[in-house]
């Protein structure tokens, strides 16, 4: 899930309009940018789509960390293609957010000065090559869990973006699993890398679904608006149930001794992540928050002359064309 803890905005609109709006959603109609919508719906979506877009952008950094060290030309090409896809997802999501009346530059400024968040997972480091496999397998896997239902979300542009994003993400997940499988079946050192990656990224991946339902106070309105389709705990359980057999297939040790099949529930039991760590990361105290945000700020600051230069050229060109006419 690339958008966590998105607070639903209260809304103070005309009750009749609100009821008609809710009825459209309940009938499964898509809301389009020019349609009337409650201010809270608009603001919540801007926050959620913006956070999702920022996650794609910041997510380039931990993966980009390994492009120059990828062990084969094919792995390098696959990783480059994946990171390019992520940047592309960022682009469609910013476009979807723009239809709600906020510009990409405004959203970027809010990311850079910390007013907007990105997924907590990208504040963890990628320390060995197996992390790249694990990011595809676990992180993209967790993201897909959330994004597949969002293909049916009520806001048209977001739903359409998710349809495209999900196709690519499924591909990334398969590639990630293939990369880590190669290592799990490889030399003892490679297997150690795979195990290390799984152990480190397991709980942060579970945290991607957000706090437990009993502590998640903002869900109800978003669920009624079909901006959020499932609860955090439902999705987390689904992820655990899907992933445990995959870990066993790889021949790796389970990263949590609490994982056990529960016959009665028909699900795996698991240990909850350390939520104090989650809230620390959200507050900016994860292992990489400072570096990730600094990297994005530097890219923006160091690139100002490029953006200004290209804009100045476009204006000169337009003026020359105008003068010639």
């Amino acid at each position: 899930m690339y958008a966590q803890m998105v607070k639903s905005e209260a809304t103070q609109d005309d009750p009749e309009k609100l009821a008609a709006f809710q009825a459209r959603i309940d009938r499964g109609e898509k809301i389009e940018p020019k349609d009337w919508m409650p201010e809270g719906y608009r603001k919540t979506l801007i926050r959620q789509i913006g956070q999702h877009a920022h996650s794609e952008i910041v997510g380039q950094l931990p993966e980009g960390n390994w492009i120059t060290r990828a062990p084969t030309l094919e792995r390098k090409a696959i990783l480059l293609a994946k990171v390019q896809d992520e940047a592309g997802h960022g682009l469609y999501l910013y476009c979807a957010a723009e239809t709600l009346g906020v510009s990409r530059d405004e959203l970027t400024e809010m990311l850079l000065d910390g007013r907007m968040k990105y997924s907590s997972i990208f504040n963890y480091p990628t320390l060995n090559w197996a992390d790249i496999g694990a990011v595809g397998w676990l992180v993209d896997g967790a993201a897909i869990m959330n994004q597949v239902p969002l293909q049916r979300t009520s806001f048209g542009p977001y739903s359409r973006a998710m349809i495209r994003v999900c196709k690519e993400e499924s591909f990334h997940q398969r590639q990630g699993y293939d990369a880590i499988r190669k290592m799990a079946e490889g030399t003892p050192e490679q297997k150690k890398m795979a195990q290390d990656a799984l152990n480190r990224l397991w709980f942060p991946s579970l945290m991607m679904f957000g706090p437990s339902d009993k502590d998640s106070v903002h869900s109800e309105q978003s669920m009624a608006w079909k901006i959020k389709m499932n609860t955090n705990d439902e999705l987390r359980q689904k992820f655990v149930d899907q992933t445990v057999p995959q870990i066993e297939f790889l021949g790796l040790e389970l990263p949590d001794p609490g994982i056990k099949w529960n016959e009665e529930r028909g699900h795996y039991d698991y240990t909850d992540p350390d939520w104090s760590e989650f809230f620390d990361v959200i507050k900016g105290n994860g292992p990489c928050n400072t570096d990730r945000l600094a990297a994005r700020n530097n890219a923006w600051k160091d690139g100002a002359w490029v953006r200004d230069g290209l804009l100045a050229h476009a204006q000169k060109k337009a003026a020359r064309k105008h003068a010639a006419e």
Partner: protein
Amino acid sequence: MTRDEALAQFLLRMGDNTLILGHRVSEWCGHAPVLEEDIALANTALDLIGQTQMWLGLAGEVQGMGKSADDLAFLRDVWDFRNLLLVEVPNGDFGRTLMRQCLFDAWHSIQLGHLMTSSDERVAAIAAKASKEVAYHLERSADTVVGLGDGTEESHRRMQEALDYLWPYVGEMFQSDEVDAEMVKAGIAPDPASLRADFDALITRIMGEATLTIPDSAFGHKGGRTGKMHTEHLGHLLTQMQWLQRAYPGAKW
């Protein structure tokens, strides 16, 4: 030098250029001035790495010693590399990266145009595929050089500095040696010196539109394509690129 030895050297020159430049361009990932540029840089790097797989794959085949493209990329030392010095110099700012790209793309597109009619069908086939990608690389890098050269005072200054810094690395693209003589004789590749006029015409037009001044110096650094003397930068690049293969020999990834 037999014909196959010369051909293998020629193929290493092509593949090492794309490998090293692809590596440099990929260093930008996540740090570009604007999202579209991040995507374009990753796309360019991806094309170059794909071309590397083809050139080095064929080089290994021609060498006939059972080496794969990966063996050649990850298990050779600095003195074995045959890339132009131009592609191994550090990225510098975005302007220098795009200026380097433009100078390389101009040469590369002309070179590939000739290679498409190579007497060696394998070379012609790789060139035909690569030339489509490189036509786009050149369009984009030239547009960006023009936009930034003819942009603000600051962007103009930075682009002129980039051109001044990189120009001494241009001459090496047009130097010929016995490998090239053998390739010309076999009808496999053109004489590098023969590409200069087309290159100068193209670059003069682009730099003219960019309002930049081509330095008035014919001096050219050399040693990359012969392997006699690389810059200090290449060794550092290889330590990063080759690290996993060197640290865990024989592992399959």
